[in-house]
């Protein structure tokens, strides 16, 4: 696959910024350091031969096993992954970018983890990041107007986190 020159170019250009590359996965992915995410994105969007001009999706996966029995078996520490699915209309390539972040910033409950926003790279990331913020509680730094998009503005909690509990009531409506 054509990702291999891509990976070498990325490594060459960003060095330590590229943390991990998995070419055996169903969709090959590259894990990058949050600090270089915007630069990598900009590069991927503009680099000749790749031109990942479309950001298909931004997903946040919460890795936290709430069941203590199962938690003992899993081979990862609780963390979150922000997954960027990119594709190119010009070259018809696809790529997955991953950013690993802690579940809470500095492990303080309630402090949202931060990731630099790529809304300046792909305009579509604007809404995707708002959705990720809304449902998973990730603070995208540099986003023009990061606010809830699907849930009401005064909703509490981030529903797609594994430890989320539905509020008992919302404006007098029974929650559960």
């Amino acid at each position: 696959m054509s990702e291999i020159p891509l990976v070498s170019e990325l490594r060459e250009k960003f060095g330590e910024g590229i943390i991990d590359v998995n070419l055996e996965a169903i969709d090959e992915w590259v894990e990058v350091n949050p600090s270089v995410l915007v630069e990598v994105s900009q590069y991927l969007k503009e680099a000749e031969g790749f031109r990942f001009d479309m950001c298909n999706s931004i997903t946040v996966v919460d890795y936290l096993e709430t069941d203590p029995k199962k938690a003992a078996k899993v081979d990862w520490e609780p963390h979150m992954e922000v997954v960027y699915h990119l594709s190119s209309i010009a070259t018809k390539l696809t790529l997955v970018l991953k950013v690993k972040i802690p579940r809470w910033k500095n492990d303080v409950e309630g402090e949202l983890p931060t990731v630099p926003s790529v809304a300046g790279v792909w305009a579509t990331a604007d809404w995707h990041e708002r959705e990720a913020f809304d449902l998973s509680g990730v603070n995208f730094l540099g986003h023009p107007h990061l606010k809830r998009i699907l849930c009401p503005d005064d909703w509490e909690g981030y529903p797609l986190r594994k430890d989320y509990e539905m509020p008992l009531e919302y404006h007098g409506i029974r929650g559960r």
Partner: protein
Amino acid sequence: MDLIAVAWPYWHQFFFVLFAATAIGFGFGVLLSKNVVRMAFYLVLSLGSTAGLFFLAGAEFVGAMQLMIYVGGTMVLLIFGVMLTAQKDFINMDTHTQDWILATIVGGSLLMVLLFGAFGSEDWKTPQDITDAEVQATKEATPLGLALTGIRVDTLGESTDAVAEGKSGYLMPFIIVSIHLLVVLIGAAYMARTKKLSHATDDKSSRAKLMLFKMEHEEEQLEEEQYVVTHRAKSALNPLDSENED
């Protein structure tokens, strides 16, 4: 069923009282109402009732024109203006009390004078008998129209020089008023414009301008050919097919 013609004495009185009462009543409404939209509404009714009085006085054409131009045109314009400016603060505006007192005194005395004048003349005060034929005759609009073109059919029998030459009509005022109206409408349209921006008044509409503006700003770095692979010939085969064939 020509009621007014035959039942003249009854219906004239009835409708006169009706229309006069509504005209004056809604006139008071205009004066006393604080809400500017309601004022406009009352004014419409008052003017409409006045048109009724015109009909009653036999001026059918003027009545219809009053309805059409005044009530239908001018008042719509006025209400339009009211709605454009009727923001919250300006809908209700109180009048100062001293204004009221002064206006009532001046207006009351003016009314006295006018009423004194109206009922002062015996000639005006005494009603005259008329025939049905005259009622009908006065309602015809053709003489009115001819008078506007300069021909006075009602004075043809008279023997002044102007009449003999057919010059007793209103052709000149009519033309002057027409041009006046035209000039005024153009001037009013010009005045009402806000002269802030003249950017979008070229041959192209502002819409097209806007579009071009957007396109310019977006396509600065656009290499369109990157996205639009050459167009497929008709009945293009799936690329995977050709790969298989290879």
